[in-house]
């Protein structure tokens, strides 16, 4: 049986259409408040009582907490699949995101499931070494409603010429 090592593949080996479910996360009141206190100090994300009488009708997560948690779920998922891989850095940094939308409020107790699908491999070579993997990323809540989506371009190392390393 072949094990799928996400980080052990060259740009050329990553197929459009590949789909992953990174996992789920249930947001607590405490983490919503703590994140907002540092990054987004609005009543609707920091004060459960005042948020009740606000337009938000209760505490809601900061948009960037929802997106930051995507990053965490992706890293955790990749690390699991990268076990035993010496070079864990073939898939590199994010370069740009497009069409990020927050579609529905996320409240304490809500559980989001994060999904990832490779949708394109733009024809670009960056610093003679990297290609771009474009993925569509979505988060669904416990009612299966989509609450967030975006596309991201992430660097992936191209197979060196004359490389025997598969």
């Amino acid at each position, binding site marked *: 049986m072949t094990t799928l090592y996400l980080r052990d593949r060259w740009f050329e080996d990553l197929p459009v259409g590949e789909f992953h479910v990174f996992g789920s996360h249930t947001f607590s009141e405490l983490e919503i408040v703590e994140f907002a*206190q540092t990054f987004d100090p609005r009543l609707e994300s920091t004060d459960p009582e*005042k948020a009740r009488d606000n*337009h938000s009708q209760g505490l809601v997560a900061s*948009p*960037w907490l929802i997106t*930051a948690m995507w990053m965490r779920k992706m890293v955790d998922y990749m690390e699991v699949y990268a076990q035993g891989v010496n070079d864990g850095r073939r898939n*590199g940094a994010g370069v740009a995101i497009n*069409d990020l939308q927050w579609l529905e409020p996320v409240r304490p107790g809500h559980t989001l499931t994060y999904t990832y699908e490779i949708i394109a491999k733009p024809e670009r070579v960056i610093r003679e070494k990297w290609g771009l993997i474009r993925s569509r990323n979505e988060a669904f809540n416990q009612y299966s409603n989509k609450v967030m989506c975006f596309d991201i371009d992430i660097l992936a190392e191209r197979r060196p010429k004359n490389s025997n390393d598969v």
Partner: protein
Amino acid sequence: MATPSPPSGTLCSETIALDKNAIVAFASRFDPQPYHLDEDAAAQSIFGNLCASGWHIAALATRLVSETLISNELSFVQMISVRQLKWNQPTFMNEEISVRIALGATGEESPIAGTHSQALEVDVCNGDGAVVAKMAVTAAIANDPKLAGTS
């Protein structure tokens, strides 16, 4: 209902300094990759030095945008969408960032009741004035400023 006419032109924010503790604290929670956590590992990475998660920069930039808009009497409620966000270069530890906001078109439609939309082009700059990230975003602005409250 007519939307209030916004100030025009470009707005500039205060600066936020990013020390190692702040970078590592965010990364430990949300982006635990070696180049955001460990100086030695970062030195050997694509970035060459310990640098902030791009999502950390995006969140801080949004905080600066909200504070700057509110201090210019634009009642920022929430970011609705980001048409594009590009990370041009890393933000290393002990650098500071600020934002420069160009106000774009306003629209009556917004998913949040009692708000209208405001397009913004945001440059995130470091202490040398280099643009480390660019965001093209749409924000919800309260029609009634009393709706937008920070704690």
